[in-house]
């Protein structure tokens, strides 16, 4: 309890509250504009927050992270274009409602379900904290190494149908982080005699290139469009009452979000699909799904909003990010000298609680903000796409150049921008590269520090948690092979794949 109070004290500063306000409202707006998305926004703002106090910078980025999905629901419902990739399923049932002239009902339901999911996720996080504080110290070098390895495997396997591509990109990420001077033996690795490579390739430069610059290039090389969203009329609070009729769906969907959010590499997409399928199966009107079913909308929004809080669990407790946004958050933590991992729960538990409270506050702020400003948002999302590309390019410059005022960094970022563009055009995943870089670094360091204690390879798994992790890795691999065999035998027909186009946004 006193930790909770200490956390609250941490937030009770005008600059922290301002950062939270700016972050959460900015996040909604960014999430609402198709073509920007939270990854681009966080990538651009990362370096800008370095100058701020740790808690100020962290709350601002947390604000963007937690609120962008609220905003993303607006264009998904109104113009059938998800603002962020994770709102894809929202458009399935949201847009038909709009077509029937029930836009305000759809939007308010989406907000209410998001709020439900968001708060549910945070409550789970708070309830789980004592358990985490108990378990986290049991994670030594071996356990963290195995957890990171499990993360890499899951990220690769999660890209079904594109496992080879995901594998090669994840390996590229692991390779990228080895470039430069090896910190232990002081030998050069893959520097080709070039001095600028000695310090390695900066993660933030890669992130900015792959997420922000690639998006700018993508928008600039495509024909110009200007999304046209009609204003919404009607009372937006009505959605909450309707949501209460579907408490079960909302709660189960949020639980899916929490559970899958904790597992690296799976996240929002799987959570959404599983909860949507669950909602459809248990619904009294399964045929209305995809034609404007309120339950479908609730399932999708509640699930994706429960994920951010849950994704913070492996990040805070073990220092292991599960997807691109938490990987970026990790670099923010490092820059501010907050090292996520077991010791965070022992030494800085008040900071952890401060972050939880910030998450609750941001959900309240965003919910209130949206009730009054949805129509303003419908105007903002009309920004023409190429113009957006110009703006992203200008903003990316601040991000890359302010790191260390290096023109070389800008060139490297531009190179990764082109790679990102190609990947987006080919509908190949970008996230494995980033996670490969982050998790690869963790694996290398942890394996090295575990070595002195290892006499035989079996020592690697002679502790309970490391053994469980090892069994999990085996289980994941076996399950994957089993599914492959099953699929091969079943000869499943091709499915509708239009939904994956949302990956491009």
């Amino acid at each position, binding site marked *: 309890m006193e930790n909770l109070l200490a956390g609250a004290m941490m937030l009770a500063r005008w600059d922290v509250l301002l950062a939270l306000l700016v972050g959460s409202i900015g996040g909604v707006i960014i999430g609402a504009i198709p073509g920007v998305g939270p990854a681009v926004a966080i990538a651009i703002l990362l370096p*800008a927050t370095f*100058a701020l106090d740790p808690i100020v910078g962290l709350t601002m980025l947390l604000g963007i992270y937690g609120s962008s999905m609220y905003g993303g629901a607006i264009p998904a419902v109104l113009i059938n274009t998800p603002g962020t990739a994770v709102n894809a399923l929202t458009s399935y049932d949201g847009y038909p409602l709009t077509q029937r002239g029930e836009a305000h009902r759809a939007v308010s339901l989406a907000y209410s379900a998001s709020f439900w999911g968001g708060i549910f996720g945070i409550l789970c996080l708070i309830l789980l904290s004592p358990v985490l504080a108990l378990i986290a110290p049991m994670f030594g070098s071996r356990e963290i190494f195995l957890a990171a390895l499990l993360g890499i495997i899951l990220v690769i396997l999660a*890209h*079904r*149908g*594109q496992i*080879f*591509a995901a*594998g*090669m990109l994840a*390996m*590229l990420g*692991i*390779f990228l982080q*080895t470039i430069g001077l090896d910190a*232990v*033996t002081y*030998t*050069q*690795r*893959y*520097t*080709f005699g070039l001095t600028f490579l000695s310090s390695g390739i900066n993660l933030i430069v890669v992130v900015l290139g792959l997420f922000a*610059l690639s998006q700018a*290039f993508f928008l*600039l*090389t495509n024909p*110009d469009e200007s999304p046209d969203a009609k204003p919404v009329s009607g009372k937006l609070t009505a959605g909450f009452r309707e949501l209460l009729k579907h408490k079960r769906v909302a709660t189960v969907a949020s639980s899916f979000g929490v559970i899958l959010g904790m597992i690296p590499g799976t996240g929002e997409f*799987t959570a959404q*699909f*599983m909860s949507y*399928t669950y909602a459809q199966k248990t619904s009294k009107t399964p045929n209305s799904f995809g034609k404007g079913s309120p339950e479908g909308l609730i399932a999708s929004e509640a699930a994706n909003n429960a994920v951010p809080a849950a994704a913070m669990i492996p990040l805070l407790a073990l220092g292991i990010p599960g997807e691109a946004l938490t990987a970026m958050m990790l670099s923010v933590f490092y820059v501010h000298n907050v090292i996520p991992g077991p010791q965070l729960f022992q030494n800085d538990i008040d900071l952890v609680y401060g972050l939880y409270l910030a998450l609750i506050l941001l959900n309240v702020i965003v919910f209130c903000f949206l009730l009054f400003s949805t129509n303003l948002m419908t105007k903002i999302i009309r920004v023409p796409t190429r*113009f957006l*590309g*110009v*703006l992203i*390019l*200008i903003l990316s*410059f*601040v991000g*890359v150049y*302010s790191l260390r*005022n290096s*023109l070389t960094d*800008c*060139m490297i970022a*531009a190179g990764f*921008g*082109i790679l990102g563009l190609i990947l987006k*055009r*080919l*509908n190949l995943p970008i996230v494995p590269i980033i996670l490969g870089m982050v998790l*690869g670094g963790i694996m*290398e360091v942890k394996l090295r520090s575990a*070595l002195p204690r290892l006499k035989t390879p079996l020592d690697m798994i002679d502790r309970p948690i490391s053994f469980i992790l090892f069994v999990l890795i085996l289980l994941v691999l076996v399950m994957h092979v089993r599914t492959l065999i099953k*699929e091969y035998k079943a000869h499943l027909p091709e*499915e509708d*794949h239009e*939904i*994956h186009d949302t990956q491009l946004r």
Partner: protein
Amino acid sequence: MSRVKTLQALFKRYRRPGDLVFAWLFLAISVLLLSQLWDQAAYKAGGKLFAQPRFWPAVSLSLMTLFAALHLYGSAISERLDGRWKEVALWISALEFAAWFVAYAFVVPYIGYLPATLIFAVLLTLRAGYRSRTALTGAAAAAIVIVLLFKSFLQVKLPAGKIYDTLPDGIRQIMLTYF
């Protein structure tokens, strides 16, 4: 079964034109990098295998090459899609915008952040095909807001333009600090 199917559809991505070109390129780069392993990463005699500087590059590059080869195989046996070279031309055309970006980064230390951003925003807006006064004023206004936000307010580390040194005393100090 239906759940398995939905999950499958979720992760499946479909090949697009140009995939084969990318697969070839990626494999070529992987092989090239792997071939440099002995040259570019050291092996300390007597040290443990897992602690060798060469260990992680070796693991990542070998697997990268393997996955790239399998990906290429997958692309090669898939149905050929039209528009392959048109797609590659689009990738190459994106280099133009990469050049714009690097040029912008190049001129900032000389002409200063505010002027460079203003000029870049307006020129690139013109290049993107906008001619209306609203778009151009919008671009200029956005450039000013971005500079004010990041340089003047957040004090992000960006070099002051060399050109500012030629300004009269009073303005020079302000420009050097805030723009």
